[in-house]
């Protein structure tokens, strides 16, 4: 007799490495679980990198589709999450370099009250501080910006940031320090 359990719905309980193997063989449902599992953090990453939700959605969508197309060649040298961070960071950097230069800071309008990223409970001051940080991030060097976001917003360990950015841990820590200094200076008026 074969002992059976109900098949887990859509593989939601499976670790990434199994879902990736299945998706690489063409299992779309496994890939859908990966998309659901990682969309939020990748969108937050892209929003911090690009400064607005519309571009962030485009970047993350492109990153996932690129991942689907390249899954058969994925060699599991890095965790799926790390691989996705790398693809998304590359996509964001390409988009940043292609788009026109940002408006001068004094022409950037405060967001409207119904801004899609705002939470009802958030105060206008919180929004203003967050916007100030977004603008300060936009002024950072590419490498510093990525390292800071991956560490302070995504909470990645130095080693994983080094994998994503293809550098060493010391380089990551140095960039992080300089990013903190620059952001501290830029956010000075809000203290």
């Amino acid at each position: 007799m074969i002992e059976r359990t109900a098949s887990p719905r859509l593989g939601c309980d499976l670790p990434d490495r199994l879902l990736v193997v299945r998706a690489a063989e063409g299992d779309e449902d496994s890939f859908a679980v990966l998309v659901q599992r990682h969309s939020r953090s990748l969108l937050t990453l892209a929003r911090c990198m690009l400064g607005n939700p519309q571009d962030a959605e485009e970047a993350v969508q492109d990153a996932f589709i690129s991942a689907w197309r390249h899954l058969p060649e994925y060699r599991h040298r890095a965790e799926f999450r790390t691989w996705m961070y790398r693809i998304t960071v590359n996509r964001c950097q390409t988009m940043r370099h292609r788009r026109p230069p940002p408006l001068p800071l004094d022409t950037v309008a405060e967001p409207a009250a119904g801004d899609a990223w705002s939470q009802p409970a958030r105060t206008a001051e919180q929004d203003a501080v967050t916007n100030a940080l977004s603008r300060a991030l936009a002024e950072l060097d590419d490498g510093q910006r990525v390292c800071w976001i991956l560490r302070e917003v995504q909470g990645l360990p130095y080693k994983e940031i080094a994998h994503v950015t293809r550098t060493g841990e010391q380089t990551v820590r140095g960039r992080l320090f300089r990013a903190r200094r620059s952001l501290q200076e830029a956010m000075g008026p809000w203290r």
Partner: protein
Amino acid sequence: MALDDPHTRPPEPPGAEGPRNGSAAGDVPPFAGDEVLPCGRLLSRVWEQAWDAPPAADLHPVSCLHCREAVEGLATVNAAARALRDEDPPGLHALADRVMDVVRAEARFGRLLPLADPDWDLRIAESAAAKVLRQAADTVPGSRAATCRLIPEGNGTDVRVTMTLAAALDRPLPERVHQVRRSVLHSAGQDLGLTVTAVDITVADVLEPGPTPGPRLPTGGGA
């Protein structure tokens, strides 16, 4: 205070830093633009420790006024970072739907395999058959299928299945593999109508108990 000024570090009694603090300015190489605080610690390391949690034995950052001031200097940045982290991105479901629309339009079917009815020359895509056979393997407690390849054998309708498995270690593996093989054979015949001549199974991973870990998020901001 510039790092390259050799007179910036005040004298300090031996042992004042506590055991193996690893962050006194003389012990570690500074980063470009780094700064030595009046207590002798590097600003970069004080900020790192505030985030990474210092070694339990190192009480200096808690008691030192200069270190505390340095950490508090980042409070605004850290609070704004937390706000960015906590923002709920809109359109998550719509994004997932758009991605999956493209993915399904680019489906990878794999090879076409003959079903066990040569009169009608019926065939099934390998990816569709593999999905059903993986589900059959997943119904055996403590096992989850990973790869599943189906290879035609000979000129007839025979098919050989090669599967890798993640299995829990709470029961002997041979028994579990035997159950998976039976479940796959049963499903191949009953659900798909495939003539499977063999199911080669390799246990390639250990299935760990407990929930799937989600992305790690920072628990502190150091300020």
